[in-house]
């Protein structure tokens, strides 16, 4: 049920929202706002804070939305993701997806959900199926991949079943319901706490999605040696589709960025030479095409990406918000801070095991080092799960408000 607000409260929330949106967007354009915006990627942390288990927020998205709103109301944050836990495990089970370990079922209810990668010889896409994928990616996904990753969907040519038919009906309607829920969530965040929804739309690098959901990381590593031209052709074939999906979910007002979540592009998963040949060309083209339409990309560089900074510097100025995880945030600032807004850089282990005083000192050091001229958004290095201490996140928030004023 929506929280009742008086006209005065509504005006105040709208003013707060406008102030925060301006602050957030100004920083993302690599300019100097009134103060450093705070946009924490809080995932399972929200469950812990709001008193839910990981099972509850991953299985019941209304609880996940409620937990995110609770945090947004209690902390002075400029922007949050409507549901950073994101994966909806009830839908996963409704359509029988096999590549998850679900809290409360395959793993304990307090654990975050996990992706499972099958053994190399049972990869969701076999090593001799590249031509099928390259010729018709959408057809391949429907006809080969989905029957393989789902308990209920039967392969083409086999008799249809009740469970097969129901999978598409339930899955399609439930997915629509979930995505529509994000619109309502954005409105509630705006009206109830004056908080901006931080991103809109989703992008994955072609190489990443082939590694994550098709060949598996180990299989794809072998393919880079055994059939490199097929890998490159598959990335090319996926590229226009990933661009299309990204644009279809983008913010029509061009305010907030499309989220790009990267997994296997960094050292040590790929060498810089492999990155240059396999990972980068198609992703670069997609980002350039998105930027040509006026949308920024939230470049979530999970892991250690500093060896790839010379490639990232090739992107158009302001086309991305570079989120720093394991990389040295000061080195990133020296290399690309003149071109792109940065975010992150507060170590997750510090937020989990450090003291509030240590967190405050770290935030001040990062602000002093990379935020002097604007173009910086405060956040942890990686998505915050339930090991982040509440008092440390509060310290990060307070230190940013204290030291991040221009």
């Amino acid at each position, binding site marked *: 049920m929506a929280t009742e607000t008086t006209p005065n409260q509504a005006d105040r929330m709208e003013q707060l929202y406008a102030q925060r949106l301006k602050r957030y967007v100004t920083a993302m354009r690599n300019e100097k706002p009134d103060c450093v915006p705070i946009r924490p990627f809080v995932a399972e942390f929200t469950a812990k804070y709001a008193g839910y288990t990981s099972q509850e927020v991953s299985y019941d998205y209304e609880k996940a939305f409620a937990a995110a709103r609770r945090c947004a109301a209690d902390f002075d944050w400029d922007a949050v993701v409507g549901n950073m836990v*994101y*994966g*909806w495990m009830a*839908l*996963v089970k409704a*359509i029988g*997806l096999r590549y998850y370990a679900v809290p409360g079922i395959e793993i304990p209810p307090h654990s975050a959900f996990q992706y499972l990668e099958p053994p190399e010889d049972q990869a969701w896409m076999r090593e001799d199926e590249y031509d099928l994928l390259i*010729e*018709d*990616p*959408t*057809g391949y*996904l*429907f006809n080969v*991949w*989905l029957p393989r990753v789902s308990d209920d969907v039967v392969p083409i040519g086999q008799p249809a079943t009740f469970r097969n038919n129901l999978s*598409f009906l339930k*899955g*399609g309607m439930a*997915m*629509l319901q979930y*995505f529509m829920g994000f619109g309502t969530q954005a409105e509630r965040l705006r009206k109830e706490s004056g908080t901006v929804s931080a991103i809109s739309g*989703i992008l*994955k690098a072609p190489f990443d*999605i082939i590694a994550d*959901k098709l060949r598996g990381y180990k299989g794809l590593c072998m393919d880079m040696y055994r059939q490199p031209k097929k890998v490159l052709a598959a990335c090319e*074939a996926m*590229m*226009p*589709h*990933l*661009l*299309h*999906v990204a*644009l*279809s979910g983008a913010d029509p007002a061009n305010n907030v960025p499309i989220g790009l979540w990267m997994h296997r592009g960094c050292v040590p998963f790929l060498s810089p030479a492999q990155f240059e040949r396999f990972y980068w060309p198609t992703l670069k*083209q*997609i980002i*350039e*095409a998105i930027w040509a339409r006026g949308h920024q990309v939230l470049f979530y560089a999970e892991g250690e990406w500093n060896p790839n900074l010379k490639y990232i510097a090739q992107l158009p100025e302001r086309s991305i918000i570079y989120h720093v995880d394991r990389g040295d945030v000061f080195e990133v600032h020296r290399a690309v801070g003149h071109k792109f807004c940065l975010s992150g850089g507060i170590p997750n282990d510090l937020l989990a095991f450090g003291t509030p005083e240590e967190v405050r000192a770290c935030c001040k050091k990062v602000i002093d080092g990379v935020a002097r001229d604007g173009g910086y958004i405060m956040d942890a290095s990686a998505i915050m799960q339930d090991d982040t201490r509440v008092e440390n996140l509060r310290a990060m928030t307070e230190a940013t408000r204290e030291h991040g004023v221009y």
Partner: protein
Amino acid sequence: MSDKQAKPQAKRPPGTCVPWEEKVKELPPISGDKELVERLWKDIDALGYVYIWQCLLSF
């Protein structure tokens, strides 16, 4: 690169499961507003595309 620049030989361009050109051959001659039929076919067909690609990307 443009999202419209799918390779010419692509069976299913981005946003498409069953192309209109394929579907229209199955229909009797359209006596009414052909553009309306085509537009709504594409709009609903695109939902199938969203489903499979979001299964891949988001779930």
